[in-house]
């Protein structure tokens, strides 16, 4: 399965970080969203990684990343 959007913030162009291989075949791929930093494996259950089935409670607002607080401010 090749993802075109991030399951969490729906941004495009995920980066492939790693392919798990066994006996020469790719078993799964780990992807990362360059917008919200969500990382996922394409073999995970749909409830965690499918943009439609995934709970919206954990969505990240890609249009307003400033709302997320920065820790350890001077």
């Amino acid at each position: 399965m090749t993802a075109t959007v991030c399951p969490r913030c729906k941004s495009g162009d995920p980066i492939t970080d790693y392919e798990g291989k066994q006996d020469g075949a790719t078993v799964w791929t780990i992807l990362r969203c360059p917008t919200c930093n969500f990382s996922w494996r394409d073999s995970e259950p749909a409830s965690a990684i499918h943009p439609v089935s995934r709970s919206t409670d954990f969505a990240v607002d890609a249009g307003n990343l400033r709302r997320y607080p920065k820790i350890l401010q001077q």
Partner: protein
Amino acid sequence: MNDLPNRARSISSLRDFLGLLEDAGQAITWNERVMPEPDVRNIAVAASRDANGAPAILFDNIAGYPGKRLAVGVHGSWDNIALLLGRPKGTTIRELFFEIAGRWGDAEAQISFVPEAQAPVHECRLEQDINLYDILPVYRINEYDGGFYIGKASVASRDPLDPDDFGKQNVGIYRLQIQGPDSFTLMTIPSHDMGRQIMAAERAGVPLKIAVMLGNHPGLAVFAATPIGYEESEYAYASAMMGAPIRLTKSGNGIDILADSEIIIEAELQLGERELEGPFGEFPGSYSGVRKAPIFKVTAVSHRRDPIFENIYIGRGWTEHDTLIGLHTSAPIYAQLRQSFPEVTAVNALYQHGLTGIISVKNRMAGFAKTVALRALSTPHGVMYLKNLIMVDADVDPFDLNQVMWALSTRTRADDIIVLPNMPAVPIDPSAVVPGKGHRLIIDATSYLPPDPVGEAHLVTPPTGAEIDELSKRIREMQLGAMS
């Protein structure tokens, strides 16, 4: 399995401890093929239902990770903690508490240094083209975590402003989220040692190098989570508490590390940079929010041959996190309270890192237990964590919740409570109206003393003490024997 105390003292690595656990029937190997998600999480959660007897689980057949090994639940039950302390399976939590409390402050550290070339942890070394996913068989710990987490890392660092001071080296457990092949974020707060060091390095514009130790001496994982003073070395403390030597060596970036750990990740803080981190299913059983956290760049990795990646399941309790830190949350509060009030007889702060604590005390006068409770709130751990306190008399075992409920039922009036509003609170407490600020509750479930007019009831006195404890264990053994 004779001479458990000596066997425990001879442990120098995770592998030694897994061997001990296996001999005692407390470690199993899961060699059936599993998917990283959701299988590893499901198996870890199923194991942690048995807080008393769950085994450690070693996975060696994870799809997509041929040849890699993963251990979970190493500290996942009281029986495993008992074996680490040189006590037999079936030792009660109360006995384990007094085992720890008795070691507090009266032992000496034994630290030895191993040349880097002879340290098992440096058997294999990577300095280029590092991809953490190629080394660690990670899995999503909870379903909505923001990524793949290293949940049981002991992170070692030197004070960036005083790098030559051994005592100011910090070792602590912090959650790390992998952020691409060679980067990770680290979550901390300003009051934690690592938070102080990050802020100091960024203020002064000096480098902060760290060494992330994975798969460690099982004593370090326990004691690195114990709140001790900033200038006390966690290595020295762990050695003293274990009554056993600890072998250190140097990481490639100059930090003292355990010579027998499975994996070391060397990394450097990216000064002033923050990246989105979280959520993460945390110990209160709820997810933390998404925040921007400091990010570290990996500079090198050392590991033993065929390393074991040790990780944890943490989330809604009961989990390995609770058995890992519960007694070592309770024992310091006990020791600190007894400096002011020797009337304190035990402290049970096992629940959600002490968000609820139960303290037993010899009540000296009417209302005395409330005074002791207020002192508990000013201990280092109490300042942020002790939210609900239940005070019971010394004739109630705070580790026996049936007895605690008896005290609540028979010795508490509705006005025997104190609510302290708008106190400091641990930011991830989901009940807080505002993260970081909340109310404290003290329930005085001790008996009545003059000038209270009611006085103590005429109590039934069933037999108690060591003889009854032994009989109870014997009945349990006979029951288990009848089943086999």
